[in-house]
């Protein structure tokens, strides 16, 4: 139960940060991505502020033997730069640039129940399922030919 409450609290603070920073407004995000228009640098300040504070927290976490409410730290294990990383990130970037919406702001905005966001989140979930199915298929094939790799998430 403490784990669930902590996780809820973290999601809440994360969402409040997105709202305060303006990053739930797609127009504001697109203003950052629009290098050839009236450029708005706010997103860079959001990411810098977030990464700085998270970095301090992560440094503290590295000095602990275990998290407060779980048995171990699940740090991302991968450091390789492979084709799925590049292709997946490029596809994500195309969708982000088309809409100005990424997963965090999408989930905060879905509370407003407006049609565009509901459509976006439904399609995002379909896309995630779709990748899961596609990956399972190729994993089965790769294992069959002996090149199967176990992947883990970076987040």
């Amino acid at each position, binding site marked *: 139960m403490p784990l669930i409450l902590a996780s809820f609290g973290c999601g809440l603070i*994360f969402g409040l*940060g997105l709202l305060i920073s303006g990053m739930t407004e797609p127009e504001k995000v697109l203003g950052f991505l629009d290098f050839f228009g009236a450029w708005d640098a706010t997103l860079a300040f959001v990411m810098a502020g*977030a990464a700085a504070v998270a970095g301090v927290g992560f440094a503290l976490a590295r000095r602990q033997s275990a998290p407060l409410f779980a048995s171990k730290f699940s740090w991302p294990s991968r450091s390789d730069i492979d084709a799925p990383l590049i292709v997946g990130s490029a596809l*994500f970037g195309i*969708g982000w640039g088309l809409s100005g919406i990424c997963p965090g702001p999408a989930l905060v905005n879905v*509370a407003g129940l407006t049609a565009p966001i509901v459509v976006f989140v439904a399609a995002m979930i379909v896309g995630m399922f779709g990748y899961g199915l596609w990956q399972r298929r190729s994993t089965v094939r790769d294992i069959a030919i002996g090149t199967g790799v176990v992947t883990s998430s970076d987040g």
Partner: protein
Amino acid sequence: MHHFTPLSGLIGGALIGLAAAALMLSAGRLAGVSGILGGLLTTGSDRAWRLAFIVGLIAAALIGPLLGTPTAAHLSSSNLVLYAAAGLLVGFGSRMGNGCTSGHGVCGFARFSTRSIVATLVFMGAAIVMVAIVRHGIGG
């Protein structure tokens, strides 16, 4: 028309970073939204903390405005096909690339992960090119 708002950006960003730090210190998990949601959809175990985090994100839009934050975005419904296509690309691509703006962007930079920094440069570059094409017809 939106204006440059560095102060609210830094304050909001610091809260996002605080949430990411707190999730690691309490649950031992990385605050990557696409990874948390994707894991909720695909893994059998481990669902409770993921669902709690996502409920927290959604609750922010209900609680935040009572505390004085901006409300959730209200977008015009004129282009639902565009939002459907964008959502598909964001969902598929963020899972294939193992992360999005939060996991690779915020947390990846905070961990000095080369892999995540490369991913962030790729998705930002792709997004900048898309906006240039859509808004200015550059290269299109």
